[in-house]
């Protein structure tokens, strides 16, 4: 296989708090190939968003990238100067955020928000940018783009707004898009449309996507490869089909069990015992151990759990294998 477009190596993001060190991301390694859609699945607070933000070096205040490398086309993004990383942002890597309600500036019309990006990164003039913007809006299925482009964000529905956000993300033809729960705030039918749109655009533009979500169901049709993350660590990573047919890690299995099915009775809904908790000063053993239904006696005493190659291209971090 060729060199991956994006390669995260042993990334650690720590927050130094008064009560201890919060290890939001603790040694994550992940590759994204050109044109590939990689899913990053885990519970809230699992550190998935922090990985996305680290790639663009936008970790919120208080957080520090403690160690690791993020190689993008062979360059380590963590070593770039502030000016160099700004060239990467938007032009090469862009982001789609969770909430379309707040990811557009309420004070400006859609038009100026798309045009600004095109002018800044592609150097088009106003007229050209407007034509491109209208065409792109048309492509993502916004009806009557000439009219809607002059609207303010609050005049559009959630789904429409997310389409606008997608247009902005794709407008500069980036090589990688980080989509942080882009469909979570939308209702189910709109979700499906947006996912299909993302997939089509990614194929059309040959764009890789790092798709961050808590919803395994969303991942199934969209992603080529899936990494399951728990408390800042990847616990299992495999091709989507392999992961769905053959989940190995107890946490992944538990996630599959918690997807409700239409033939279930209410009492049968499964949920994982306990909560993730905040990984402050946790021991370096298996993080899922306290909630695990398949735990072994040895889990308690083993300090470090490394990946096991379950089958080629299917890694699991569990002592059972």
């Amino acid at each position, binding site marked *: 296989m060729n060199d991956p477009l994006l390669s995260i190596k042993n990334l650690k993001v720590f927050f130094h708090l008064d009560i201890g060190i919060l290890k939001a991301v603790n040694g994550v390694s992940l590759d994204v190939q050109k044109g590939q859609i990689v899913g990053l699945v885990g519970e809230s607070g699992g550190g998935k968003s922090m990985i996305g933000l680290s790639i*663009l070096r936008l970790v919120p205040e208080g957080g520090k990238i403690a160690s690791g490398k993020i190689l993008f086309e062979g360059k380590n993004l963590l070593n770039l100067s502030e000016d160099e990383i700004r060239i990467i*942002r938007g*032009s090469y890597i862009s982001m789609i955020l969770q909430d379309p309600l707040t990811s557009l*500036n*309420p004070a*400006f019309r859609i038009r100026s928000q798309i045009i600004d*990006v095109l002018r800044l*990164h592609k150097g088009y003039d106003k007229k050209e940018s407007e034509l491109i913007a209208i065409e792109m809006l048309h492509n993502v299925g916004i009806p009557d783009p000439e*009219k809607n482009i002059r609207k303010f964000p609050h*005049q559009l529905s959630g789904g429409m707004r997310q389409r606008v956000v997608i247009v902005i993300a794709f407008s500069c033809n980036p090589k990688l898009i980080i989509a942080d729960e882009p469909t979570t705030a939308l209702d189910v039918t709109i979700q499906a449309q947006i996912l299909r749109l993302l997939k089509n655009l990614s194929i059309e533009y040959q764009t890789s996507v790092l798709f961050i979500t808590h919803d395994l169901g969303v991942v199934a049709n969209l992603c080529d490869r899936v990494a399951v993350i728990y408390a800042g660590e990847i616990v299992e990573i495999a091709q989507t089909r392999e992961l769905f047919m053959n989940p190995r890690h107890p946490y992944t299995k538990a996630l599959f069990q918690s997807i409700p099915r239409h033939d279930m009775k209410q009492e049968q809904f499964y949920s994982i015992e306990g909560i993730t908790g905040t990984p402050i000063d946790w021991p370096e053993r298996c993080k899922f151990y306290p909630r695990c239904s398949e735990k072994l006696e040895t889990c308690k005493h083993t300090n470090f759990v490394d990946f096991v190659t379950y089958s080629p291209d299917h890694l699991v971090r569990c002592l059972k294998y």
Partner: protein
Amino acid sequence: MAGRKKERFVQIKRFLTNGKVLFGSIVLLLLVFTSITAPFIAPHDPNEQDITATKRPPFWMGGGDSNHILGTDSLGRDVFSRLLYGSRVAMFVAVVGTFFAGLIGVPLALLAGFYRGAVDNLISRFVDIWISFPPILLSIVLMAVLGTGLTKVALAIILVDWTRFCRVIRGEVFNITEKDFILAAKAIALSNLRIIVKEVFPNIVPLLIVLVTLEMGIAIIVEAILSFVGLSVEASIPAWGQMIALGRLYIHQAWWIMVFPMMCIIISVFGLNLLGDGLREVLDPRLKVIEMK
């Protein structure tokens, strides 16, 4: 482009059909009008004394005449003319004081709210210390140091009131910078300056407009208090606070000397506050949505 015209029409209509905005704007326009045209519309020189006609009542009362429609004060000066001239002081202080207070407070608030951390600590602690002086006391001390005069009153008000802009706007900047569109702006590599000016600032404008109208009202009151204690403009310039201070001495014999300037202050401040309140309703984008659907 007919749609755009119609949209603008709808907007103007929304401003005019809001009673608070309408009343407030009329008061404000009236103040602006009298303060500009006072020399032309005042029937008398405000400092012209007529010892033969002191404490004359307003024209509708016995002993009053149409020459002095709101009566005269204890020195025989025309109350109505003095009120008109007094509005100049009030408006000057309101406009200049508020503008410069905002000019100091808003940029500091933007910096504190956007960069947070050490920058915010520095600015906010400084504001905290500044506010811990009682405002009236601070302005009286300032006036005692600066001396009397119109620009000095404005300066005292600026020095007292910039903190209010700083505090209120900083909070709003905090809210706005939490929003995803700021993160999105960073993710498309906008510079910090551009994010502050083009992404954050437009979103505080509605609050700023409201704050400006409230602040103008406060400036008028502060000026009145200062001129009441004789620490505002020179005695030769008529000001509402001065008129009240003088009228207080004759409240039992000639109530009009004190009551009319008081009413001027009350109506001005009330009108400006209503204007601010109404503008908040009109400018709030969330309320806009409901109306359009």
